[in-house]
């Protein structure tokens, strides 16, 4: 854009400054925020600036989604960087962290550079690659953590895979500490959860499906947290699903672990009963838990024990989902619905709006050291403009992601992103 932009009469919610006030956001021609707040309302409008009256809308720092699976390279029929970025923009997400579970696996600087270059050329939003923690995600040899960090990897992870070998994990964490790298892992015990395709319990028993007990998450999480404490590395629990895991996070932090955690929007919105008669779009890892678990996790998000919300956007095709439940792939798309589903927690008075936006933007940007998550003067103008009450219905026809495996098909939402700006440029508008 050549001219500058002013968003006026907008309710600004900026968790980085704990700011919730109505005012203006002034964006310079270089895509940087010049001023944002009530004070900016009375400042003059720069010459040639376009002015948007945002009365009734909320402006937040652009959302940051720390867990997104993309099919590029290797499975472009499911999702490309370009299609994922369009889905992100329409959901108000201005930055996302891409998981390394691609084909080939993102375990080499050339591949990190490929992703960064492709994203720069084609993506509407900021894409930050996470690199594989071990070569080929095999869990045996650590990758070039230092060079990958320099190349732009913002986290190290095993993606969908776990890491069984505690010696490998300890060395990787010890080494990663020197580069201040974040290690993000999903906790899943390969033995306890071996055949588990949904939450263990009565419901799974009636369906004749093997269950994964909560201990299959808790045991490796507690193990990882011990090693994080031992090594002093930055550890991020990529997806927790049961309140016992939140307790483990609290305890580990009290012992000095540099540990943070995330929950997927699915686990804040849905429970195991949504599986109904073998609906594979609800087959997730970790599995959807009970309603009591969901409620407790909402509380843990509200009080900050769980730091962030992720979409865990995982595009799957008909060929991996239109199968008997146990044979179907895990995962659901979520970039386009994360914000709206999260706003349900605001409308239900369960999580304050400030905390929600913090969990969706400011906090993930802090954890992964991204230049995002704030509307401070001088920051890049990544902004999500939200109508908190706009009613809409999710329909398969309007989904922008190349894959349609949403667990929110036909869901009715109140509130969505009406416009998304990345560095001052409009990338989505209703």
């Amino acid at each position: 854009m050549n001219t500058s932009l002013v968003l006026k009469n907008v309710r600004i919610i900026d968790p980085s400054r704990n700011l919730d006030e109505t005012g203006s956001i002034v964006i310079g021609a270089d895509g940087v925020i010049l001023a944002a707040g009530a004070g900016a309302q009375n400042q003059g409008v720069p010459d040639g600036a376009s002015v948007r009256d945002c009365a009734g809308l909320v402006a937040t720092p652009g959302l940051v989604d720390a867990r997104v699976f993309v099919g590029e390279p290797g499975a472009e029929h499911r999702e490309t960087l370009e299609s994922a970025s369009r889905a992100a923009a329409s959901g108000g997400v201005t930055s996302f962290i891409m998981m390394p579970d691609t084909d080939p696996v993102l375990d080499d600087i050339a591949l990190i550079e490929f992703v960064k270059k492709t994203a720069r050329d084609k993506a509407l939003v900021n894409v930050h690659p996470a690199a594989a923690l071990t070569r080929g995600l095999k869990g045996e040899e650590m990758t070039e953590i230092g060079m990958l960090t320099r190349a732009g990897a913002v986290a190290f992870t095993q993606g969908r895979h776990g890491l069984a070998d505690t010696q490998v994990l300890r060395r990787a964490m010890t080494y990663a500490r020197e580069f201040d790298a974040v290690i993000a892992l999903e906790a899943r015990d390969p033995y306890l959860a071996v055949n588990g395709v949904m939450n263990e319990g009565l419901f799974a028993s009636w369906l004749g499906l093997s269950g994964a007990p909560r201990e299959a998450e808790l045991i490796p999480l507690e193990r990882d947290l011990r090693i994080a404490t031992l090594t002093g590395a930055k550890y991020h629990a990529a997806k927790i699903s049961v309140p016992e895991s939140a307790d483990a996070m609290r305890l580990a932090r009290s012992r000095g672990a540099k540990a943070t955690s995330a929950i997927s929007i699915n686990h804040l919105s849905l429970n195991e009963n949504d599986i109904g008669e073998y609906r594979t779009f609800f087959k997730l890892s970790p599995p959807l838990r009970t309603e009591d678990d969901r409620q407790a996790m909402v509380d843990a998000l509200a009080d900050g024990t769980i730091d962030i919300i992720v979409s865990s956007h995982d595009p799957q095709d008909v060929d991996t989902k239109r199968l008997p439940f146990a044979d179907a792939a895990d995962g659901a798309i979520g970039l386009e619905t994360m914000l709206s589903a999260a706003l349900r927690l605001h409308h239900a008075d369960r999580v304050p709006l400030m905390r929600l936006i913090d969990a969706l933007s400011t906090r993930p940007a802090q954890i992964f050291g991204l230049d995002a998550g704030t509307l401070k003067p001088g920051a890049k103008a990544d902004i999500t403009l939200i109508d908190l009450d706009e009613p809409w219905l999710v329909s398969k026809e309007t989904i922008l992601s190349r894959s349609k495996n949403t667990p929110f098909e036909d869901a009715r939402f109140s509130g969505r992103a009406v416009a998304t700006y990345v560095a001052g440029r409009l990338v989505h508008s209703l």
Partner: protein
Amino acid sequence: MVSFPHRHLLGIKGLTEQDITILLDKADEAVKISRQREKKTSTLRGLTQINLFFEASTRTQSSFELAGKRLGADVMNMSVGNSSVKKGETLIDTAMTLNAMRPDVLVVRHSSAGAAALLAQKVACAVVNAGDGQHEHPTQALLDALTIRRAKGKLARIIVAICGDVLHSRVARSNILLLNAMGARVRVVAPSTLLPSGIAQMGVEVFHSMEEGLKGADVVMMLRLQRERMSGSFVPSVREYFHFYGLDAEKLKAAKEDALVMHPGPMNRGVEISSEVADGPQSVIESQVEMGVAVRMAVMEALLLSHNSDARAEGWGA
């Protein structure tokens, strides 16, 4: 007679006491047909039944085949190997192919729970679940109920002890549902490693000792324990399993004197049941096989005659 209000038989879940009674009454009639010299009727003449078995089962498949033939239907058997890498892909692809041949009923067995329900969404004809993974095996539960009802005159308040590998058993799940719907009292007897999570909330009383679990039982229903589950993974050994949970004459004494002994077959003699008991006077295992044909005749007739051709046509292209 009230007609059977369901399009498919995917499980016992969702059936009312009345639905089950309709099927059992019809099956009683079918037993008479099967005992005549002239066993073939024209009830389903001109209709096509396809048995689609992704899991090998000579007994169940033969039973369904005979049931269809006795009703005058054209019966085709399709056994699809279960070894291919993507079983599910085969399932949907095969279903679509068969659907194009316009069958009137598909009888399906598959190793994955929910497979029959998935298939029912994709085809235009009636679907009968002949066993889907560890989920349900409704015709087995119906034939067990018929066997019990004919021997005891009723199902209400009958005490049934289901013994053995409940965890992996679709037979147990369907039986628990059916017997509860009919007002019977259900017990399960097994080591905890062979019981599903949440079993106590499934409408059963849980026992870990045969002596206690069989006390006063009207029916002792044994389940098959698969060989790969016997040596250390779920129970320590065949010897230990038989010692504590195998049904022999001594353990059977705890049940009522006239208690029925049942087994869905095929039996592992000396593992879950001794030959002495399996072949003894209280055993109704052979009768179960006979009732199997009758129940399957009843199910097929109920599904195919209660829906007119318009109702079936609606499903085309769905």
